[in-house]
């Protein structure tokens, strides 16, 4: 029997297993030891590992990022957790000016084995300051590694890899991914950096979905299947370094590629992926497109919020238009019930 876990359960298991095996792993962050334990992902850890290894922090994101860096310099492996990714903006000085640069600017004399976990918020009116995805900003910075897994399997494997990695690692979660369930092995395993995952095979179009958009792409794939369009869905998993070859191979096969980003598009991950494809001499006849957040801060009212994000239907519609160059019209059926996409795996 394959064991099914939820995404947050997979995260917690990765932390718990690594803490058990390595006393240098510590967890810090606002509210991580409170009754809710960062949406369940750190619940109970303090009882098992004690207050020296699991502790709440003052509301001091920049300072506490520096504390995590300092602890890493002294040989610990801190996991600094932010319940909202927006809060990471307060830590940019330490993250970019220190964590990303110290090894290089000290000629390799130091290393910073730390993980920064952050959760992107969405839905129920999270609004302008609780829904931002700032990974494109961070992809711009040499010296940081970035994971944004969409499945429970990858969540555990990537986080384990991140904790064991000797470099600053950003681990990006999405609130809606917390409803994902899927196959997760009980033992330790790692998922490598720089390797994209093909979540579904198809011949007609490639959909590259980042973070929770990978799930929307799988749903869009169900709509498209109804009209006999087979979409290939790729989750980059590792945004920095990025596995462009897997994406390139798929684009060469399907001749149509759309990147659906979970962020704004300007200077974004989609812009980066498409540019890298072009730089690798992608044939001119391959059709390219990107989708992402509307170029405004996120509104709270549901009537506007629904237009802010790409979703399965808008992705399917855009894919359809790419295939038929707008010559035919089609609407995804409204009554189609698409169940939660579970990952049965194993991968």
């Amino acid at each position, binding site marked *: 029997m394959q064991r099914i876990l939820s995404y947050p359960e997979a995260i917690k298991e990765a932390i718990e297993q690594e803490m058990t095996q*390595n*006393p*240098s792993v*510590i967890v810090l962050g606002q509210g991580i030891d409170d009754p809710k334990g960062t949406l369940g992902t750190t619940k109970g850890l303090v009882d098992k590992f004690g207050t*020296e*290894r699991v502790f709440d*922090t*003052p509301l*001091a994101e*920049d*300072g*506490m*990022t*520096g*504390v*995590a*860096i*300092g*602890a*890493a*310099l*002294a*040989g*610990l492996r*801190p996991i600094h957790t932010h319940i909202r990714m927006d809060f990471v903006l307060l830590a940019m*000085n*330490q993250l970019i*000016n*220190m964590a990303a640069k*110290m*090894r*290089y*600017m*000290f*000629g*390799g*004399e*130091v*290393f910073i*084995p730390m993980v920064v976990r952050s959760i992107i918020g969405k839905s129920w009116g999270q609004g302008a300051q609780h829904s931002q995805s700032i990974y494109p900003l961070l992809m711009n910075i*040499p*010296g940081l*590694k970035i994971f944004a897994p969409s499945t429970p399997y990858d969540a555990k494997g990537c986080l384990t890899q991140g904790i*064991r*990695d*000797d*470099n600053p690692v950003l681990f990006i979660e999405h609130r809606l991914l917390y409803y994902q369930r899927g196959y997760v092995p009980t033992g330790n395993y790692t998922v490598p950096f720089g390797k994209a995952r093909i979540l579904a095979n198809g011949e007609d179009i490639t959909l590259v979905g980042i973070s929770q958009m990978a799930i929307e792409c799988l749903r869009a794939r169900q709509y498209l299947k109804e009209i006999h369009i087979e979409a290939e869905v790729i989750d980059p998993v590792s945004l920095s370094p990025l596995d462009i070859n897997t994406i390139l191979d798929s684009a060469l096969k399907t001749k149509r590629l759309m990147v659906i980003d979970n962020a704004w598009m300007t200077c974004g991950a989609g812009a980066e992926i498409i540019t890298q494809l072009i730089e690798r001499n992608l044939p001119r006849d391959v059709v390219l497109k990107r989708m992402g957040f509307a170029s405004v801060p996120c509104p709270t009212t549901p009537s506007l919020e629904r237009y802010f994000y790409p979703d399965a239907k808008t992705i399917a519609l855009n894919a359809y238009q790419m295939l038929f160059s707008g010559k035919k019209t089609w609407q995804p059926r409204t009554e189609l019930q698409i169940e939660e996409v579970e990952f049965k795996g194993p991968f």
Partner: protein
Amino acid sequence: MNNQIHKLTEKFYGSLYRIRRVEEEIARIYHTDKIKSPVHLSIGQEAISVGVCEALRPDDTVFGTYRGHAMYLAKGGNLKKMIAELYGKSTGCSKGKGGSMHLIDIARGVMGTSAIVGTTIPLSVGYAYALKYKKSDSIVVSFFGDGAVDEGAFHESMNFATLKRLPILFICENNLYAIHSHHLRRRHSDNIYERARTYGMRAERIDDGDIFKIYEFTNNYVKQSMLGNIMPVFLECITYRWKEHVGPNDDFHLGYRTKDEAEYWIQNDQLKKLKSFLDTDISTKIESEIELEIKDAFEFAEESHFPEANELYTDLFKDSKCNGF
């Protein structure tokens, strides 16, 4: 002067003289552009680094700022590697990738200096957290200037350090200016050390730059820590920067400060004062040994090679494997 004080005086004098002369040499050759890196000289402020670092043990760790030559040398940082670093050579302490503002010598407990004001304060606190966690009895010293007190990270760090009762000594080198801005243009009150007290730590001020007072204070802290009395402690040292903020020259002509203000500190120069306590043959012997060492260091830097082109891409990441504890 009893024997112990005499020995200390000789030691302090040697360390002060070495730092002063290294920086004077940097200033002397700076116009040749052999050092293609901004330099922030510590001339006038050396007694703080020397007074503190002479009281530390080799396995104590210091973090500092871009005005870090004095701290690096006082803690025992490798002089040859420092000068080579300023020259941008591959034999430098940061392989030429850091320059004057990013000095490191882990073997001597110099954990690195940073060009962004206030950034190493939380790092030193985190390092102290790890020391306590590992039940080490060594301590951390965090050096920073009065400008860093304006930064949020300073306050965040003070709070966390006392909250967790960490083995850390905060040394504020208050030279009165952040670039050209007097500290009372940047804050309401002249009370940096008193602010530290409000976070729950002992905090004192030494306002005359006396190297023995600074040494005694630190020595006391180190002894207390070894007895298990672990708490952060704060020391504000009033001092004065003789040279311009960045570069080898004087800048009294700019008009943001007066020569009169500097005069007290120039008269109060700890280097001159200590020399007056020593017999001439002793100070001459100390000086000539140091002059040779400095000459060697600059020759080493001159003769060293620049990094090869492929070095551009090295040392961004460390190959990963899980390190034991």
